[in-house]
């Protein structure tokens, strides 16, 4: 399979053909490569990223957007797709101009890992994964361990009829270690998870001490008590704080929800919503972070966008259409999951900026509450302003001290109430951006980083 650049002439010609029947047209072509290794006590699995490629065309049909896609970058299949799109566009001639101004950016970007995982080769990566597995299995009581190491390079080419051309090749590296402890047929686990844009350097400290520590954590989960239930003080660790940032002011500030009149945040733009110690950011340009991109799928370069500035709700995430409708500028957040998926306003890396309270100070303020650790998932409610955050484990906090380890929990609450109740934001110690995937609704998953620092507030928690 040849590279995207080998087909740029065919793609540009196809775009020009569509452009003859539309006021504006653009394309995103995509190609992947990569490798994943997964080992456990029974199996070794090596997977190559499928040799997939494709292109999606979007054109303005006078009153709405029209799209077509093909998994061929040249030849009859591409021609057929273009012809059918042009035919649909011809039926919809006339109408207003497309909303907003098109990008005219031109550029090329490519991740340069300091130490690429791919350079280890399959044997080297398998050897590293087995080493991690064996460190975990050496801990008494650990019956099984799964280790996964992967890298992935995605090339995207954006072209439009206004002259924009953006080519990017992003390399992401990811690692996961899950030691599983068993007792009386009951499995329990803790995990280590890291990833980012780059090579092995984004995995941080994947060493014996780290793996053994996670394995000990898995064993400890067997003795975890039931979590408390009800409304109480909640201290979110940085991973859970990141989920909070993502589900609360992340999804709520995707401005397509404003345009749909489906955001509880729209009426309070500009208002003070939390303490001065709270600043929330989406930053697609953050070097090395998992959700970073060089440019978005409308040809706008990624950027840092402050959503909440010292407690004041100041910004939203925009594509060209929402920017035009709401008198803003595009923020580089238009993303497609792949060439078969539509473009939406999406987050990149969303996080809580460090505050000024140490972990010890935050703990000492809690009389009765719970520390929520290892966020696993979240779900938003853009109109109602509720949020659900799920975590793998936690500790009770009693009279200013950490006490019992407790099992998995869900946090539920109204975002604005949660913000009002914030009692402290942690310092940069422990700041982290975790790798994850974000869906728009329940599909269209894109890499999204979430992170931040410790955050103390008040909410409902219960078993989950």
């Amino acid at each position, binding site marked *: 399979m040849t590279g995207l650049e080998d087909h740029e002439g065919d793609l540009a010609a196809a775009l020009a053909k569509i452009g003859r029947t539309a006021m504006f047209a653009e394309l995103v072509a995509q190609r992947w490569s990569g490798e994943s290794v997964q080992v456990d006590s029974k199996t*070794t699995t090596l997977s190559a990223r499928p040799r997939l490629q494709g292109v999606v065309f979007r054109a303005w049909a006078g009153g709405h957007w029209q799209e077509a896609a093909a998994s061929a970058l040249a030849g009859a299949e591409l021609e057929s797709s273009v012809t059918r799109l042009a035919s649909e566009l011809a039926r919809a001639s006339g109408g207003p101009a497309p909303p907003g101004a098109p990008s005219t950016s031109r550029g090329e970007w490519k991740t340069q890992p300091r130490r690429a995982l791919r350079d280890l080769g399959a044997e080297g990566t398998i050897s590293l994964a087995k080493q991690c597995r064996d460190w975990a299995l050496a801990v008494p009581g650990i019956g099984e361990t799964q280790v996964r190491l992967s890298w992935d390079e995605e090339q995207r080419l954006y072209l439009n009829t206004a002259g924009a051309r953006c080519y990017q090749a992003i390399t992401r590296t990811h690692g996961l270690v899950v030691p599983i402890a068993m007792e009386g047929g009951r499995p329990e*686990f803790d995990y280590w998870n890291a990833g980012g844009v780059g090579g092995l350097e984004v995995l941080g400290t994947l060493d014996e001490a780290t793996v053994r520590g996670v394995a000990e954590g898995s064993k400890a989960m067997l003795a975890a008590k039931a979590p408390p239930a009800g409304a109480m003080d909640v201290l979110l660790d940085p991973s859970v704080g990141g989920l909070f940032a993502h589900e609360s002011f992340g999804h709520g500030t995707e401005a397509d929800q404003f345009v*749909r009149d489906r955001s509880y945040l729209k009426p309070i733009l500009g208002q003070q919503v939390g303490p001065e110690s709270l600043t929330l950011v989406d930053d697609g340009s953050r070097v090395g972070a998992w959700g970073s991109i060089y440019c978005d799928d409308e040809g706008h370069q990624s950027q840092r966008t402050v959503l909440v500035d010292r407690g004041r709700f100041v910004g939203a995430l925009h594509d060209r259409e929402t920017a035009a409708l709401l008198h803003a500028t595009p923020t580089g957040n238009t993303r497609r999951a792949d060439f078969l998926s539509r473009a939406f306003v999406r987050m990149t890396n969303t996080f809580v900026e460090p505050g000024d309270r140490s972990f010890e100070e935050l703990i000492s303020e809690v009389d009765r509450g719970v520390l929520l650790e290892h966020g696993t998932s979240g779900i938003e409610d853009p109109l109602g302003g509720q949020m659900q955050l799920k975590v793998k484990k936690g500790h009770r906090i009693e009279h200013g001290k950490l006490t019992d380890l407790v099992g998995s929990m*869900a946090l539920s609450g109204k975002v604005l109430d949660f913000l009002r109740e914030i009692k402290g934001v942690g310092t940069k110690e422990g700041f982290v951006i975790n790798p994850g995937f974000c869906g728009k*609704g329940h599909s269209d998953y894109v*890499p999204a980083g979430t992170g931040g620092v410790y955050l103390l507030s008040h909410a*409902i928690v219960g078993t989950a």
Partner: protein
Amino acid sequence: MTSGGTSSDLAFRLAERIRAEPPWEVIGERARRYEVHFRGHEVELERGPLAVEGFGIRVLRRHGEATGTGFQASTDLSPEGLAAAVGDAETISRHAEFPAPSVELPDDGQAPPEVPLVDPKLWRDPTESLRAYVSALLAPFAGRAGVVPTFGSVRATLSEVTIANSSGLRVGFNGTNVDLEVAVKAFGGPEGTAPGEYWVTDEARRLAPERFPAAVDAWCRYAADVRRAKQPPTGELPVILPPDVLEGILPAGLGFRLSGVARLRKLAPTVGTQIGGENISLTDDGTYPWGAGSAPYDDEGLPRLRRTLVERGKVVGHLYDSLYGAAFKVPSTANAARSAVGPSMDLKFAHAPVPALSTLLLAPGSGGSLAELCEAAGEGILVQQLGWARPDAFTGAFGGEIRIGYRVRGGKIAEPVRGGTVGGTMFAAPGLPSLLASAVEIGDEPSLTGRLVSPAVLVRPLSVAGATA
């Protein structure tokens, strides 16, 4: 050649050109997707055709007492593309290890069951069918005061799947799939009352516009009830879970733990283990008409089966494909599935098979209708919609936020509740509460939702966390 009915022959053509040593298999897929996205009553975006044609090839190579499997997928159908994918698969197989010395792929001898999977009208004219479907969906909203659809989409995928292997198997089938998403907003009335939303998602095999008038009535009612809902109480309470909610819990919670994948890692309950009450019987039915997980064949080309997994609360079977079956020296149960949740396209050809549930059936019980289950509950909670409640695959812990539910008082559905959490565990040691052990009443009105056919269930108790004790 056996075929469940497909208009494609992609895998068959590729099979003629494969020059690899057996055993190998190839899956071909031609998929077309069409979508209509709307904002309010206006079309925002029309998409389609989104056309993909590709294949995935798997080779299985013996390494002493183990097998090395190598898989690669590609959209490059040229001879060079096929050769490159075969080369990748061979390379990968040299590094892989699976504890089965010999794996037999299915041959071409068994007739498939009749499983309806294709919406003929959608297949014939997808663009106009979707436009008409969206019109039928939006029509019942017209003229309603204080309630609107804020946005939504209908996505239809038309797929032609073919499978061939070195044992001579040549099978294929077509299918349609429809994903619906609608956000319904209730608003207006007394100043200061926040709007409410009911968010609908579902997966089906066919367009069913006849359901919309009644369904839209219900969605509008739930959206309005969100506005006046209060938080639930905290406590261990009887909870009624309807099929829509169970669809997010049961298949995900059971699929892994009852699979050969879990058994190989000693994470599966063994045959004979009591994992639920005597009223719990679960069947995997890959032949269930219009089930999202149903098909004439599994994704290795074996005719789909109907098999009991749990009978009167006891495990009686596990799920295998050819590979995991070989590890235990048992035949495949026709549960090979190729799909993924994540960032890549959800196309069969791009994934190697693993054992998974097809369509899961929870046998009806004697609990009667939803109203009768509420009567049996006395005082409790009826959950209409939960947030992401998907169980942890290893531990079975599940739970989520109540998006909309109702207090049950004196055996009757009472005021709406929202917020707080409902959760518990799928499995527990004998004598301890769990969803499967504490499902005291199973309803008798099953319905198909995505990959689950189930009646509503009364669980006594589940943990509910709200604002007050």
